[in-house]
């Protein structure tokens, strides 16, 4: 269905044409089930534009599922989601996505430059081939992540950190307003982690919204200014200073105190 038809249907059903246009991400009553077991339950979420937001929670909290639902990759049981007040279909070209590194086959016969160019496929649309313009954009993005010397490399020759930089470059070429990154700092070296944080910070400073599934509680306060604590339900959300409390963390992580000992703030 075309975006305008989508909108027309909304109007027909008596829904308001715009939902919270002032919010980068707005989620209402979202429930997602897998084999009849809820993975996400009754999620209400509001993320303002221009923040760097961490989505944090224990394993199986539904962090990836939340992002996939927002991007229409997972079909929710119920719920309503808008990005800058519009449905995902309508703003697809303004949204960048970095899936978990482990979800793709790094032995796939392709080069670094080619993978980065894939970020421009959405803008190209069906059937159209990438050309010189796309190649130049991809090379530029590779420079931003410090991987320009690897453009011609086969992707299986990259280290974990390099793979993650390539994925980040692929999202950068999308020139989006809202970025979703699923565990971009998982299993990367310290240099890469610093580089990623720096680039994401620059995006935020340019007014973009950056939403990151993050696994390391210790770095939440240094890297991020907005926090969503998740464990099937939303435990807390808001500015990091207000939400990153021992009480909230305990509510999210329950008995997994070992995690908290290192990362949690004093009470």
């Amino acid at each position, binding site marked *: 269905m075309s975006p305008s038809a989508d909108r027309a249907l909304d109007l027909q059903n008596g829904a308001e044409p715009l939902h919270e246009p002032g919010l980068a991400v707005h989620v209402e009553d979202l429930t997602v089930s897998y084999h009849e077991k809820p993975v996400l339950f009754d999620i209400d979420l509001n993320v303002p534009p221009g923040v760097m937001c961490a989505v944090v929670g224990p394993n199986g909290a539904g962090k990836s599922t939340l992002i996939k639902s927002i991007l*229409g990759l997972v079909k929710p049981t119920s719920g309503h989601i808008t990005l800058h007040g519009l449905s995902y279909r309508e703003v697809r070209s303004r949204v960048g*996505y970095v899936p978990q590194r482990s979800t793709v086959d790094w032995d796939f*016969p392709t080069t670094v430059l080619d993978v980065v160019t*894939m970020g421009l*496929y959405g803008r190209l649309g*069906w*059937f159209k*081939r990438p050309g010189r313009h796309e190649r130049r954009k991809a090379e530029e993005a590779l420079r931003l992540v410090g991987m320009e010397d690897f453009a011609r490399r086969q992707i299986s020759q990259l280290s974990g950190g390099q793979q993650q930089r390539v994925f980040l470059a*692929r999202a950068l070429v999308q020139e989006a307003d809202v970025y979703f990154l699923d565990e971009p700092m998982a299993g990367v070296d310290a240099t890469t982690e610093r580089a990623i944080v720096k680039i994401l910070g620059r995006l935020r400073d340019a007014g973009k919204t950056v939403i990151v599934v993050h696994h390391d509680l210790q770095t939440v306060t240094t890297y991020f200014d907005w926090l969503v604590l998740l464990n099937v339900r939303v435990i807390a959300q808001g500015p990091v200073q207000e939400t990153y409390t021992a009480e909230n963390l305990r509510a999210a992580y329950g008995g997994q105190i070992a995690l908290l000992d290192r990362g949690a703030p004093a009470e």
Partner: protein
Amino acid sequence: MLAAALENIPLMIVATGALVGIAAALPGTFLVLRGSSLLSDAISHSIVLGIVLVWMMSGAQSGPLQLIGAAVTGLATVFLTELVAGTGRVKNDAAIGLVFPALFSIGVLLLNVYARDVHIDQHTVLLGEIGFVWLDTVALGAYEVPRSLLSMGAMCAINLVFVVLLFKELKLATFDRALAAALGFMPGLLFYALLALTSATAVAAFDAVGAVLFIAFVIVPPSAAYLLTDRLSLMLLLSAAIATLSSIAGYVVAVLFDVSIGGMMAVMTGLFLLLAFLFGPRYGIIAQALRRRRAATVTPA
């Protein structure tokens, strides 16, 4: 000259084999990369049921109706597999193993009951007989063209157009399904289209090479090409080249030793895989051993 070529029996056999190989290797490349190559096994068996059903309903043993029937049966196979796997009670590979023998056996039973005296029989279904493709011809203008050559040429052209037109979309959907979906490229639909074409190709190839040899053409040339290159476009080209070489070499060797031509063509795909495995420039075990030794001499212990 064309008439002379069409009279040339060895050329017709080799050309048919090559067309089967190329038509199979094109979708096969994406199936192998996606880790779904065994679906071609499932499809090429379960479409026996489709062939029998279409024949019972329409009387057509081949032709467009059979191709469409095969595409539908192939999709039904995959759909049922995903349905069984989707219950969460059975793993995906086991689901494949549950669905296709059921459909295949129903097809074979129907053959036994209703089609004892008809041309389609189990032997043809499994192995085909490429040596006789020149016997069954259709008139095309002034020329008598082998039916298999015509149908395989058509399938080859259709698959080629599909892969060339949707190269970028297929690449993204195979490499990163999540991003493909997020960008709106409908990877699920693309995958189903790919499997529909694989099914149609399988049924078109039946007369010539049968189910089992078709599977060899889907899986083996792309697997060999995978060991030889780092570029998807080159992998497609090399797959097609290996399939062509296999049918030429297969024919020559089969005639030399007086054995099954189709069978020898499949053996040749295996031989090329072995060669790629041994001598491939980057992933071949010899090249890797040499690299290891060089690395060992450069860095003193």
